[in-house]
Every structure is written in C-alpha cells, then in structure tokens.
C-alpha cells in the first residue's frame, strides 16, 4: 500500500509549565506526516521541530510503545487514547486523521491526577490504591503449592481478564465523574476469584474503595464509558463484582 502523506495538520495541545502553573492551549503546524506513522511518532517529529526552533518540547508520557506498560496517556479529540477501540495512544496511528485536520490533545483531567507538565499527569494515586490492599499477604506456599490448588476454568479466565489492566488511567480520564471504579474493580477482581486472594477479600475491597474515595476520585454512575475506552477491554461486570465484594464485607462487619 502506497504511503499516504498528510501534507499539513494542526495540533492543538495543552501546555502547562508545572503543577501550579495555569495551562493554556497552543496550536502547532506539523508537515509531511506519513499516515503509517504512529501518533506518538508524530509528536516526536513535532518536538524535534520545536527543539530546533529553540522552543520547549511538549512533555508527554510514554515508555514501551507497544501497548503493555500503560504509561502513555493523552485525551485526543475528546477521547481517551484517541479515536479507536481497545488501544493505547502508542498504538494509535495517523491513518485515523485527515489532511488539514486540527487535532486537540489534552492531558487526563481529574483532580486525583494532577498535571505535572503539559500532557504528563501524576498517577501515583493508583499506586496508593494498590498499596491500600491490592496484594496478597498470606502465605500461599511455593510454586508447587500454586500448581496443586485447582482453579476452575471460568474463574481462572475471569481473573486473567481482570489482570489485563495496565493501570493507564483511561477509565478515570473518560469517566464523567473521574471515577476510578474500573481500575479498582480490575485490581480487586483479579484476586477475588482465586483461593490465594479470597482470604483477604473483605479487607481488600474495603481498603481500596476507602483509599479511592479519600484520593478524590468521583463515584461510579454506570455510564459504561470506561469499558469502551479501556485499552484492555476490562468489563464493567468487574465493577458489579467489586460492589458485591464491598457490600458483603460491609454488611458482615
């Protein structure tokens, strides 16, 4: 397939010097971008140009660039991870955009995810939620013991589906309430179905929800937007499980 070149596009991006500074939008022209290049490569090319012009390059998060680390973010044209399904921003390609288009890029916006610089946000809040209970601290034995405990196929699948969460924060970013319920649900669900995780199930659900509330995330109103924008397709059925785990724990207190 012949490579299609976008002769000129406009990129309208959020610039903010630091956590405390007031941000603003700035629009840049980018020329000659192959539709085969990735979205982040386009930003690299733009940054290269900015550096040559002696300007401050745009700060954005990225690491693996293959959709597994969850570091890249970006709210592109009004959607978390841009206009495509089940992908991270590093998996987004320029073929999703047209000649002459103005692409709006914003950071994840949530009180619990403060902007560090430009498009980079601080997602330590997720780590704090994990530290509150997203682990197994009982003795589960060694590898042979793990293999000796039979786990049903359905349970194993459910747990593995939940474990696909990469902690990117797209669920929070896209949620109209900036709720972290999908993330917390995934982290609770990946352990709730397994015998090793069940032991601390009650404490885990309560502690993680309490931490999530404390950090200023909103409440879930079940719009379902998170599941459609989640790069790993984490289902909101896990949120129902989290609610179940939480209510069970609270009512048995």
């Amino acid at each position, binding site marked *: 397939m012949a490579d299609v070149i976008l002769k000129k596009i406009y990129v309208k991006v959020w610039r903010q010097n630091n956590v405390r500074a007031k941000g603003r939008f700035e629009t840049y022209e980018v020329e000659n971008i192959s539709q085969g290049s990735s979205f982040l490569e386009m930003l690299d090319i733009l940054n290269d140009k900015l550096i040559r012009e002696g300007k401050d390059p745009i700060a954005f998060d990225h690491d693996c660039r293959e959709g597994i680390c969850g570091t890249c973010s970006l709210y592109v044209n009004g959607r978390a991870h841009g206009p495509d399904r089940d992908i991270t921003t590093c998996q987004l390609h320029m073929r999703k955009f047209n000649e002459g288009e103005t692409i*709006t890029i914003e950071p994840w916006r949530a*009180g619990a995810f403060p902007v560090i610089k430009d498009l980079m946000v601080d997602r330590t809040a997720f780590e704090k939620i994990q530290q509150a209970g997203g682990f197994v601290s009982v003795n589960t034995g060694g590898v042979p013991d793990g293999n000796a405990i039979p786990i049903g196929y359905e349970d194993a699948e459910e747990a593995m589906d939940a474990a696909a969460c990469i902690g990117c924060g797209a669920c929070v970013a896209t949620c109209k309430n900036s709720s972290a319920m999908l993330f917390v649900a995934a982290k609770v669900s990946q352990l709730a179905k397994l015998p090793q995780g069940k032991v601390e199930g009650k404490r885990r659900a309560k502690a993680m929800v309490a931490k999530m509330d404390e950090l200023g995330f909103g409440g879930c*109103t079940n719009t379902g937007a998170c599941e459609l924008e989640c790069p790993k397709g984490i289902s*909101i*059925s896990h949120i129902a*499980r989290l*609610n179940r785990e939480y209510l069970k724990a609270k009512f048995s207190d």
Partner: protein
Amino acid sequence: MSKGSFLNASVGRKFLMSITGLFLIMFLLVHMSINLLLIFDDSGDLFNIAAHFMATNPFIKIIEPVLALGFAIHILWSIIITIQNMRARPVKYLKSNQAVNSTWASRNMFILGAMLFVYIGIHLYNFWWKMKFAGDPLLEHITVMQAGVPVEMENAYALVATLFKESVIYDIVYIIGGVLLGLHVSHGFWSAFQTIGFNNHIWRKRLFVLAQVIGAIFAIGFSVIPLYFLIKF
C-alpha cells in the same frame, strides 16, 4: 458495621440511591396501573373506586411516609453525589466526545432527575394537594356502586379528567414528564442492579434490555393518558 463510613463511602451512597430508586420504580408501576384506568372508563367509576381504595386502605397509609422518605433520600443523595462527582474534575475538557461511549440518559441522570423534580412538584399541586388538603369543587362526593353496594367517595376522576380536558399546556407538561421518567428509568433500572452487585456478563444484557423495556412502558403508560384526553376531548 460503622454506618457513618458506609453512607459516606461512594459505594454506600450509591447503594442507597439504588435501593430507593428500585422502590420508587415499584411504586410507579402501581401508580401507573391505576392511572391507566382513566382511559378505560370514561364514566370515571373504575378510577374513582381505585382512588378511593388507595385513599382509605391502611396499608397505603403506612407506605405513604415511607414513600416520601424514599423520594427524599433519592433526591438528597443525588445532590451530594453529583456535587462530589463534579468536584472530582476541577479542570474540564475542552473537547469531550462522550456520545460514542455512553448513552445520553446515563450521562444526564441528574438533569433528568431535576426536571422530574419540578414535574412532581406540579403534579402534587394539581392533584395530591387538592385531594388531601385544599379541596376542590370538582371533588364533590358522588355515589358509586361497588359490588352492588353504593359507596360515597370523592370524584377524583372529575378533578383529573377536567384538568386534562381543559388544559393543553398541562397535557403537554404531563406528556413530557412521562418521557423524562422513561429516560431516567431506562438507565436507572439496570444501573441499580449493577450497584448492588447483582450483575455479571450474562445478566447485564438482560438487565439492560429490561431497563429499556420498563423505561418505554413508563414513557408510554404515563404520557398516553394526557394524550388520550388531548385527542378525544
């Protein structure tokens, strides 16, 4: 269980919203069924008998304050939750394309609820207030034959039917009210089950479809009554 922390927790608050919401849906189903008698008997006897039964039945007397409490909690908690949720995003997006990932009703539950609140206010003033407290010449007692026995009762039918026959504005207000309610319930019903944890990947499709059906029943059931009077009289 420490009640304070539960009701202040996001999931606890939503639990209350769900329970009260489901309770209100049950009430509305009964309410709508009785209302529909308005269009099946133009003499008004059927509706009057049902209204009389509701007004005098001791069980309904007990339910009434519970119902008021249900409404109060549902409304107050929705305000608390909405404020908290708005605070969670201090800087808004310039561009947000939510239409691709969620239904309009699910994103606008509070606005729908607020409009329904106004509607309920009008509705209570039109009927409930007059039947219970203020009185109205239209409500003058009549005698209806009930299972062969003449029973004296308020002419509730006259009050309702006259309003709908005489005011196109009120007809339209009530039709809109019915549609708003349908939209509210089309999200609220399945959302309530999701929040109390009764959902999984099989049930969610069923509950979602059921919510759309119940929403449609409410929208049609409530708005067909003013529509009937608007067209027929």
